[in-house]
């Protein structure tokens, strides 16, 4: 018996049609899975009620793997086969990873990505991450009572293409359909921005286990705009653990440690860090492999002192991001704290002092990214909830095109193209000697410009004079990952260029988009006829233009009888053009074409003769 969830009014899904979608925060230290249930985003806990899954995988001889708490508990006992923070190695070569010499693994430098030798064989970070994702996927399937339609997986804003691809590969390996990868700060903004629906500029301060990201976002009319991002791909809670670990070594004046002792002391360092955050002081006791006992007591003051440089390292990128966004500290309306490490009091204090305001932390900083990802997944899977007029585009909702002669739309980028996308098409001039061209960028599915939405206009000047149809103007449409459209036009021979940048999604609510789509279906037949009419008119006008120009120049080539014939056809066509019958216009155009064939041939002969007169054959370039 399926268990039901509450839907929004009027949006009950038909049986078996509710799509199960989850958001996954694939973290360096911990990972989470969340979904939208009865209208609210919630993290899905395991059988013990724990939402967090340590991103730790332990490999055993024979090939099987254990993931999560069980693996984490054994990391001191089996450090070489217990892989943690695999996210740091995703899509990275050996030399790219900071502090790699402190990791107790048996690395193999492979082309593209570092590999790890374990008891279960050589594993890539992608395989390790896939183990984590598999456990979360199984948990989600069990919790939701059905197969998953897809997942949104979050990545740090700093991930490059290789790291993003590695993350996608891991998901595929885990049998997950990736609806999209979402930047972690954007996910956090979704979780906060929508729940509290507050507009303005926000800073997302994300200090996770292994990465620090600062993002400056603008939330307005429900649309997220990333103004700037910065950060440190190798700074996180792990580094604070490591600093504490080094402090313990200094305090206890320990000799070089075995892999097991290193792992044990790192675990103790992490526990101490968490205890200090909660209680203000921590006592560290550890029995090393040699039998020696290490003891130390740390207070908030010592912790703050030994991690001062790490805290300072978060402020440099923050300053830079603000500068890139062209904003001052006063412009920031709120600071969103993300990542378990932002619980540390010295981080909260540093952020508060820098931004001159108390950071927002009414959502659990460990969960906020997963919750936002779940909300995004719910929308992408097609479970629409009312009031969600925000758009985080990963496809273009409506086609983008260009106005051509006759008020027709030439579609350049068809709707549902995934972004980023770039398309180009060549256009030409309509009149002889035309030296400028005006471009009108439109959005919509209808055939006539007047029925579409106008996005931008711009002009290209400096086209060299040529006969109509000879100029080649390449118009390129480019939509980047943030949905930003830029259109450029370039004339081929001279290279003159003009361009414009527009944000096509801006201000368009879901209803507008569906209305525009519906219109295009309902008016399909009208549009087809309208297009045929406009096309016939444009062709007819081009023909009239050419014939009139030819008559003005070379009327002498015609007999009086021929002239009357042509004039008569010109008049007939000029009259047909004003009518609404595209077939009449077409047949009139054809008639004019026929009576002017002989005229055109004579003109051709004469211009060839003129060109050749007085020339020696030897001088002709053939």
């Amino acid at each position, binding site marked *: *018996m*399926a*268990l*039901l*969830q*509450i*839907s*929004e*009014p*009027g*949006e*009950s899904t*038909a*049986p*078996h049609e509710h799509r199960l979608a989850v958001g996954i925060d694939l973290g360096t230290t911990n990972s989470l899975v969340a979904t939208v*249930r*009865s*209208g*609210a985003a919630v993290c*899905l806990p*395991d*059988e013990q009620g724990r939402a967090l899954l340590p991103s730790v995988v332990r490999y055993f001889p024979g090939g099987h793997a254990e993931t999560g708490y069980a693996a984490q508990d054994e990391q001191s006992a089996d450090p070489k086969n217990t892989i943690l923070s695999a996210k740091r190695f995703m899509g990275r070569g050996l030399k790219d990873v900071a502090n790699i010499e402190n990791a107790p693994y048996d690395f193999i430098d492979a082309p593209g990505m570092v590999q790890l030798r374990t008891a279960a064989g050589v594993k890539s970070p992608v395989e390790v991450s896939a183990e984590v994702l598999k456990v979360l996927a199984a*948990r989600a399937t*069990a*919790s*939701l*009572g059905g197969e998953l339609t897809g997942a949104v997986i979050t990545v740090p804003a700093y991930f490059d293409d290789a790291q993003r691809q590695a993350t996608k590969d891991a998901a595929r390996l885990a049998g997950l359909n990736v609806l999209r990868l979402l930047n972690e700060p954007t996910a956090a903004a979704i979780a906060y921005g929508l729940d509290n629906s507050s507009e303005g500029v926000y800073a997302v301060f994300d200090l996770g286990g292994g990465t620090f990201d600062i993002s400056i976002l603008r939330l307005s009319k429900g649309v997220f705009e990333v103004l700037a991002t910065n950060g440190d791909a190798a700074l996180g809670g792990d580094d604070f653990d490591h600093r504490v670990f080094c402090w313990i070594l200094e305090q206890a004046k320990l000799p070089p440690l075995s892999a097991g002792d290193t792992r044990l002391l790192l675990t103790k360092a992490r526990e101490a860090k968490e205890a200090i955050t909660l209680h203000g002081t921590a006592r560290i006791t550890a029995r090393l492999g040699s039998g020696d006992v290490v003891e130390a007591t740390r207070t908030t003051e010592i912790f703050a002192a030994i991690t001062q440089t790490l805290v300072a390292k978060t402020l440099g990128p923050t300053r830079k991001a603000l500068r890139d966004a062209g904003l001052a500290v006063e412009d920031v309306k709120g600071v969103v704290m993300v990542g378990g490490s932002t619980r540390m009091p010295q981080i909260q204090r540093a952020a508060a002092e820098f931004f001159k305001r108390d950071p927002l932390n009414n959502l659990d900083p460990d969960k906020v990214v997963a919750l936002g990802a779940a909300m995004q997944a719910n929308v992408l899977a097609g479970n629409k909830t009312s009031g969600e007029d925000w758009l985080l585009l990963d496809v273009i909702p409506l086609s983008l095109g260009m106005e051509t002669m006759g008020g027709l739309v030439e579609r350049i980028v068809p709707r549902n193209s995934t972004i980023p996308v770039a398309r180009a098409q060549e256009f030409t001039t309509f009149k002889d000697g035309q030296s400028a061209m005006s471009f009108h960028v439109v959005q919509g599915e209808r055939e006539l410009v007047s029925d579409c939405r106008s996005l931008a206009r711009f002009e290209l000047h400096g086209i060299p004079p040529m006969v109509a149809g000879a100029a080649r103007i390449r118009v390129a449409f480019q939509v980047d990952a943030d949905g930003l459209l830029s259109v450029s036009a370039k004339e081929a021979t001279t290279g003159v260029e003009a361009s414009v940048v527009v944000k096509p999604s801006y201000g368009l609510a879901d209803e507008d988009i569906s209305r525009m789509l519906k219109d295009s279906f309902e008016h399909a037949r009208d549009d087809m006829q309208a297009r045929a009419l406009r096309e016939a008119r444009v062709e007819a006008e081009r023909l009239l233009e050419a014939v009139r120009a030819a008559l003005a120049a070379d009327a002498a080539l015609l007999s009086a009888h021929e002239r009357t014939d042509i004039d008569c056809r010109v008049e007939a066509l000029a009259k047909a053009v004003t009518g609404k019958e595209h077939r009449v216009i077409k047949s009139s155009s054809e008639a004019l074409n026929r009576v002017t064939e002989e005229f055109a041939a004579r003109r051709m002969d004469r211009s060839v003769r003129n060109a050749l007169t007085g020339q020696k054959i030897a001088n002709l370039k053939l």
Partner: protein
Amino acid sequence: MAITLTEKAADHVSGYLSKRGKGVGLRLGVRTTGCSGMAYKLEFADAVNPDDVAFDSHGVKVLVDPKSLPYIDGTELDYTREGLNEGFKFRNPNVKDECGCGESFNI
């Protein structure tokens, strides 16, 4: 007869409603779709329609349109947990048979 919620179901509905920030109650109903004839409708209610039949159960207003009521009259809505899966369950005395999935039914 009436429509009732178990206390657990009512707690969850109240929780969801307050999280959602709007809504007057819960709407139950049936639709004539589904692999076995009828399908349950379980939605938040933002307004009371003039012909709605309203019930009050553990402080939650339950609304049913008069056309649906005969199919689900006497239903008790429960909130249950089956392993990791949790959600609402209709205990409907009118049901003759259900499809295997339980999302649709026949009377």
